[in-house]
C-alpha cells in the first residue's frame, strides 16, 4: 500500500500545527501564559506555576473575610423545583414562584403565626396588616374597610395608594389568571365589590358574611401591584399586563429581584425601605439565592457541608440521617393543611359498594406503610379510637378509627358479595415514586391476603392528572392541600361535584348540603356540629382513606432562625434571620 506512506512529509507537520492551534484556542498556549505573567519565561519551568499559585493564594486570603461577611448576610436556599414566573397568578406557576412572590410583593393583610407542638406555623385566625395598617369589619360582616399605611412605598419609590389596590384586586378577579378561582372561595368575584374611598382607604363589599373573605386577601394571589407601572406595559390584548409581569416585578415587597433565570435560580436583594414585617423593619438577609438543584442527594450534601443554608424537600431517608448526625437544625412540622389518601373511585365497580371500600380500609397495613414511605415522619390519621363510634371533633382531617384487621375486611367483602375478592389496578405518579412505590408494594401484598389481586401502575405525572381528571382511575394514591384549612373548605372542594379534586367522585347529597351550609355559618357551636356530622358521614361512607399528614422537613444551618411553616408549604424568606 504505497499510497498510505505517500503523504508522510506533509503529514508529519500538520498535526503539530493543529495541536498548537487548538492549545491556543483553549487558552493553554505558552504565549498566553507568558502574557499572563508579563515576563519572559520558559513554559516548562515550574517557577511561573508556583508564582501563579502564590498570587492566587494571596488573592484568596485578601478576599476571604469580605466574602465571609456577605455570606452571613446571604441566604442560600436550594430546591428540587424551580421558579417559572415572577407573577404567582400565571397559570402553571410553581410553588417556588409563590414563595418568591411572597417576598417581592405585599398583600393587604397577612397571616400571623402560632406555635403548634413547639413549632411555628401560620395562624389562619390571626390576620395582621401588611399594606393595610388596620381594617374594620362592619357589624353585619358585609363591609371590610382597609386603612392603608401612610409610609408604604413601591420599589420605585412611588407611594402605595388605594387606586393601586383597586387595580390589583380588579385584576385578580377579572383577568384570566389563577387568583380568580381562589378569591371565589371568599365570595370575591367582581370588580364592583372593590371601592376606593380616599387615597388611603379602601372598601370591600361582600354579598354574604363570608369568613374566608379576609383570609383570601392574605393568600398568594392578591398581590398589590404598582398600577402606574403595570398600565404602561398593558396592551390591547393584555389589559392586565400579565405577559410583562411574568418576567418583571412592580411591587412593594421586602425583596427586589436582582436576577431571574427561569428553571435555574433567582437572586433577591433586600428592599431597604420595606418595613411591613412583623417587627416593623426591613427583612434580615441582604440577599436571598433561590437555586434549583434537581438531585436530592446533592441538596443533602450541600446543606450538610454548610454551602446551602436551608432546604425543605429532602428525601425522608436523608433527613433521618442528617437528624441523627445532629450537626444541623431539623424542624419537622406535620403539614396540617395537607392529607395523603388512598383514594377509590366511588362510581367504578366494585368500589361503588361501600362494603368494598370498608374492606379496603381494614386491609391496609398502615404502620408498615407509614414506616416504609415516610420513615414515620408525619402525623398518622389511622389507629384512632372513637368513643361510641362518634368523631371526636369537627375538624378536618380527623384521625380515623381504622387499623389492619384482615378478618373484619373479609367480612366486609362477604357482605359486598365478593367473598373471593376481585382484581384491580393501583396507581401512583412517578413524581411521588420515592414514597408511593413502597406503599404500593405493601398494599398489593396485604390485599392479596384477602383475595384482592392488585396490579401496580406507575404513571407519568401529566398522565396521572389527566386520568384523574377524566375519572378513569379506580384505586390510587393522591394528596390534597388547602391554603385555608377549614372543615367546610375541605369538604366543599374535595368531596363535591364532578370535578378533578373530588378524587373519590363521591356524590352524597347530605354531605353536600351540610358543607355548603356550614360555609356561611357564623355560629361557632353550630359550625362544630356541622363538622362532626361531615366527619361521621365520611367515616361511614369511607369514600377515600386518609393515611397521614406528611412532615415538612426543613433542614437548615444551625445559625438560621425564625423558620415558620406556611400555608403555601414553602419558605417565607421574610421570616428568617441568622443569629
Amino acid at each position: 500500500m504505497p499510497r498510505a506512506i505517500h503523504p508522510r512529509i506533509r503529514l508529519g507537520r500538520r498535526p503539530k500545527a493543529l495541536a498548537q492551534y487548538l492549545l491556543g484556542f483553549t487558552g493553554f498556549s505558552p504565549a498566553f501564559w507568558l502574557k499572563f505573567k508579563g515576563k519572559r519565561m520558559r513554559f516548562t519551568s515550574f517557577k511561573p506555576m508556583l508564582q501563579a499559585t502564590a498570587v492566587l493564594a494571596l488573592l484568596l486570603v485578601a478576599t476571604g473575610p469580605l466574602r465571609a461577611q456577605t455570606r452571613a448576610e446571604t441566604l442560600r436556599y436550594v430546591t428540587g423545583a424551580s421558579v417559572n414566573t415572577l407573577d404567582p397568578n400565571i397559570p402553571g406557576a410553581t410553588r417556588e414562584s409563590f414563595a418568591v412572590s411572597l417576598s417581592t410583593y405585599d398583600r393587604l393583610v397577612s397571616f400571623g403565626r402560632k406555635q403548634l407542638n413547639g413549632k411555628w406555623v401560620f395562624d389562619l385566625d390571626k390576620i395582621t396588616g401588611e399594606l393595610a395598617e388596620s381594617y374594620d369589619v362592619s357589624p353585619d360582616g358585609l363591609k371590610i374597610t382597609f386603612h392603608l399605611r401612610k409610609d408604604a412605598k413601591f420599589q420605585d419609590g412611588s407611594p402605595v395608594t388605594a387606586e393601586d389596590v383597586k387595580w390589583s384586586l380588579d385584576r385578580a378577579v377579572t383577568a384570566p389568571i389563577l387568583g380568580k378561582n381562589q378569591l371565589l372561595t371568599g365570595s370575591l368575584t367582581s370588580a364592583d365589590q372593590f371601592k376606593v374611598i380616599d387615597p388611603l382607604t379602601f372598601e370591600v363589599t361582600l354579598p354574604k358574611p363570608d369568613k374566608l373573605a379576609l383570609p383570601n386577601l392574605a393568600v398568594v394571589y392578591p398581590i398589590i401591584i404598582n398600577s402606574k407601572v403595570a398600565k404602561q406595559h398593558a396592551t390591547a390584548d393584555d389589559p392586565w399586563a400579565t405577559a410583562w409581569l411574568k418576567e418583571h416585578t412592580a411591587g412593594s415587597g421586602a425583596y427586589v429581584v436582582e436576577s431571574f433565570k427561569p428553571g435555574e435560580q433567582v437572586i433577591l436583594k433586600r428592599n431597604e425601605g420595606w418595613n411591613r414585617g412583623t417587627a416593623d423593619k426591613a427583612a434580615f438577609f441582604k440577599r436571598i439565592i433561590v437555586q434549583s438543584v434537581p438531585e436530592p442527594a446533592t441538596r443533602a450534601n450541600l446543606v450538610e457541608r454548610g454551602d446551602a443554608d436551608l432546604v425543605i424537600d429532602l428525601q425522608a431517608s436523608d433527613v433521618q440521617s442528617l437528624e441523627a448526625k445532629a450537626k444541623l437544625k431539623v424542624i419537622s412540622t406535620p403539614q396540617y393543611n395537607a392529607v395523603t389518601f388512598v383514594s377509590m373511585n366511588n362510581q367504578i365497580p366494585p368500589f361503588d359498594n361501600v362494603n368494598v371500600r370498608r374492606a379496603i380500609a381494614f386491609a391496609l397495613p398502615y404502620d408498615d406503610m407509614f414506616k416504609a414511605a415516610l420513615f414515620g415522619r408525619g402525623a398518622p390519621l389511622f389507629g384512632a379510637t372513637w368513643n361510641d363510634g362518634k368523631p371526636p371533633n369537627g375538624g378536618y382531617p380527623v384521625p380515623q378509627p381504622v387499623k389492619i384487621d384482615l378478618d373484619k375486611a373479609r367480612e366486609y367483602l362477604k357482605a359486598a358479595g365478593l367473598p373471593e375478592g376481585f382484581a384491580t389496578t393501583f396507581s401512583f405518579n412517578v413524581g411521588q415514586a420515592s414514597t408511593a412505590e413502597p406503599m404500593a408494594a405493601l398494599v398489593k401484598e396485604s390485599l392479596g391476603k384477602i383475595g384482592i389481586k392488585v396490579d401496580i401502575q406507575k404513571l407519568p405525572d401529566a398522565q396521572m392528572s389527566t386520568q384523574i381528571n377524566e375519572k378513569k382511575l379506580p384505586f390510587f394514591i393522591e394528596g390534597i392541600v388547602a391554603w385555608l384549612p377549614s372543615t367546610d373548605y375541605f369538604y366543599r372542594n374535595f368531596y363535591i361535584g364532578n370535578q378533578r379534586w373530588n378524587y373519590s367522585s363521591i356524590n352524597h347529597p347530605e354531605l353536600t348540603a351540610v358543607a355548603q351550609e356550614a360555609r356561611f355559618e357564623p355560629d361557632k357551636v353550630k359550625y362544630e356540629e356541622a363538622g362532626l356530622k361531615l366527619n361521621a358521614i365520611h367515616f361511614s361512607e369511607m369514600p377515600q382513606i386518609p393515611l397521614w399528614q406528611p412532615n415538612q422537613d426543613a433542614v437548615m444551618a444551625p445559625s438560621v432562625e425564625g423558620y415558620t411553616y406556611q400555608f403555601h408549604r414553602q419558605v417565607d424568606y421574610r421570616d428568617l434571620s441568622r443569629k
Partner: protein
Amino acid sequence: MSSLPALFGVLVFTFLLMRVLPGDPAVFFASGPNAGKEEVELIRKQMGLDKSVPEQLTLYLYDVGRGNLGRSMMTGQLVTKDLRERLPASLELTFTALLIALVSAVPLGVLAALKPGSIIDHGVRLFCALGVCVPTFVSGLLLIYVFYYLLGLAPDPTGRIDVFTSMPPSRTGFLMIDFLIAGDIDGWWAAFRQLILPALSMALFVIAPLARITRASMLVSLGSDFVRTARSVGLSWRHVVVTYALRNAILPVITIAGIVFSTMLGANVLVEKVFSWPGVASYALDALLSSDYAPVQGFVLLMASLFVLVNLTVDVCYGIADPRVSIE
C-alpha cells in the same frame, strides 16, 4: 441542504409523537389548589391545543419556519431563548468530556495494541469495562461524594459557576472562553472547577468505546505491510507508531467520536441532573415528564440539526486525517 427533508421528517414525527403520548399538559399545568375546568381550558387555548391536530401542525410548521419554536409552559420562556441559553452549557460540557475521553482513550488504546495480551492490555480492558458498566449518575454521585463531600476539593456541584461568582459578559456562551475574553482568571478557574467533575464522569463512560476501537484498528494497522516496511527501513519507534500506524488507524476513531459526541449531547441528562447543570438534556427531560410539547419538539429539532452538523464535521475531519478520502 440534502439533510433538510430529514429534519422536516423529524419535526413532523416528534410533533405527532408528542400528541399521541397519553397525558394532557393543560390538566397537569393547571395543578394549582383551585384549578378548575375554566383554567384547564385557558391553558389549552394558550398552548393551542383547542385546535385540531392538522391545524396545530400547520401553525407549528409556520412558526418554526419563522424561527419561533413556541413557548415553554414550564419556564414560561420562549423555547428558542431557553435553548440558546442552555445549549452552550451542554456543548461546553460535552466538548470537555470528549476531549478528556480522547486524550485518555487514544493513548490507552495504543498502549493496549502495542502489547496485546500483556498486563497493560488487561488493565485497559478492566478500566473500560468498569467505565461502561458504572452508569454515569453513579460515577457522578461517587465523584461528588469523594471530591466534594469527603475531601472538599471540588466546589459544590450546582451548575456552571459558583453562585457567588459573577458571570462574565456573555459573548460565546462558553464560560471557559468568555472568562478568558473578559480576562477574569479567578472566574475562569471557578468555572473550570465546576466543569471538571461532570466532564470526568461523562468521559469515564465513553472512554471504553473509544479505547476499544483505537486498540482494534491499531492492531490492524500495526500488522499491516506498510508498518512492517517502515520498521524494516529502521525508522524510529515513535515515527512508526505515531506517524504511520496511528495516523492510519485514526479514521474509525473519528467516526466513533462523532457518534459518541452526538449521543453524549442527548444522553448526558443524568449527569446534568446530578450536577444541576443547566443544559438542554435535563430541560428536555423535565419538559417530557410534564408533557410540555414545545420544548421537547424544539429539543429534538436541535439535536437533529446538531447531528447533521457533527456528521459534516466528521466528514471534514476524515479529509484532514486521510487525504485519500477526499480524492476518492
